[in-house]
């Protein structure tokens, strides 16, 4: 059995929904950020697979992946700064703790 595009799409959909499950069920801010990284990686896998299977002589998919990796790095740095600040204020990284904007 040849490995077709569908196999890779199913794999990346599985990874994406594992990420969605983690994002919905965890309470820890850092674990939620890790689930987001999983989802970004499954999107990257899709870009690379479509680039190879559908337009093998183009480079667009590879560049999308490259820029997604760059943006994920910037996003992780800023999110970590925010998480450290939340930890200083509330002494925990639980998503339910910061409620001061509700009052």
């Amino acid at each position, binding site marked *: 059995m040849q490995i077709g595009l569908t196999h890779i799409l199913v794999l990346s959909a599985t990874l994406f929904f594992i990420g969605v499950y983690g994002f919905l069920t965890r309470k820890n801010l850092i674990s939620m950020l890790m689930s987001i990284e999983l989802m970004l990686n499954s999107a990257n896998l899709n870009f690379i697979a479509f680039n*190879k299977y559908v337009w093998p002589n183009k480079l667009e998919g590879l560049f999308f992946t490259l820029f997604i990796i760059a943006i994920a790095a910037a996003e992780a740095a800023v999110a970590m700064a925010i998480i450290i600040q939340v930890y200083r204020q509330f002494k925990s990284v639980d998503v339910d703790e910061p409620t001061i904007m509700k009052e």
Partner: protein
Amino acid sequence: MSATQILFWFLSALAIVSALSVVISKNPVYSVLSLIITFFAVSGHYILLNAQFIGIVNLIVYAGAIMVLFLFVIMLMNLNQDNEPQKNKWLKMAGVVSGGCLMLVFVAAFKTSEVNGKIAQTIDGNIGLTETLGKALFNEYVVPFEISSILFLSAMVGAVVIGKKGD
């Protein structure tokens, strides 16, 4: 089965098992370590898909830099124990059911789509090598490249300003 297929199935199983372990394990340190294994498996997929440069960049940037940052922050906050509060069991069950239904819809859509059964077509094997990518990056993609450098500068300044002690 050829070697490529064995590698594909092995890497897929590794990626899915370690991704499940990321969302299931209670200790955040174990989550980070399983996430690193997932990134290794995904990098293997990139290399199988003829994107060698992206595979190595994925390893260096994700597994090397971002995950070390995560580990540092977890150690800094003393989160490396199993006392994370869990959401209630019914909510988790609802998450599994709704996520699983949406995934079934996705898989069914793939089954009947046009791309079904497309076989890998490689014009030449070196499309993902550094030379090709570098030439295209500094000719056609030079404006997005420069804009992403501005993004990095602002992210760096933002991280320092937000993370600074005091007000």
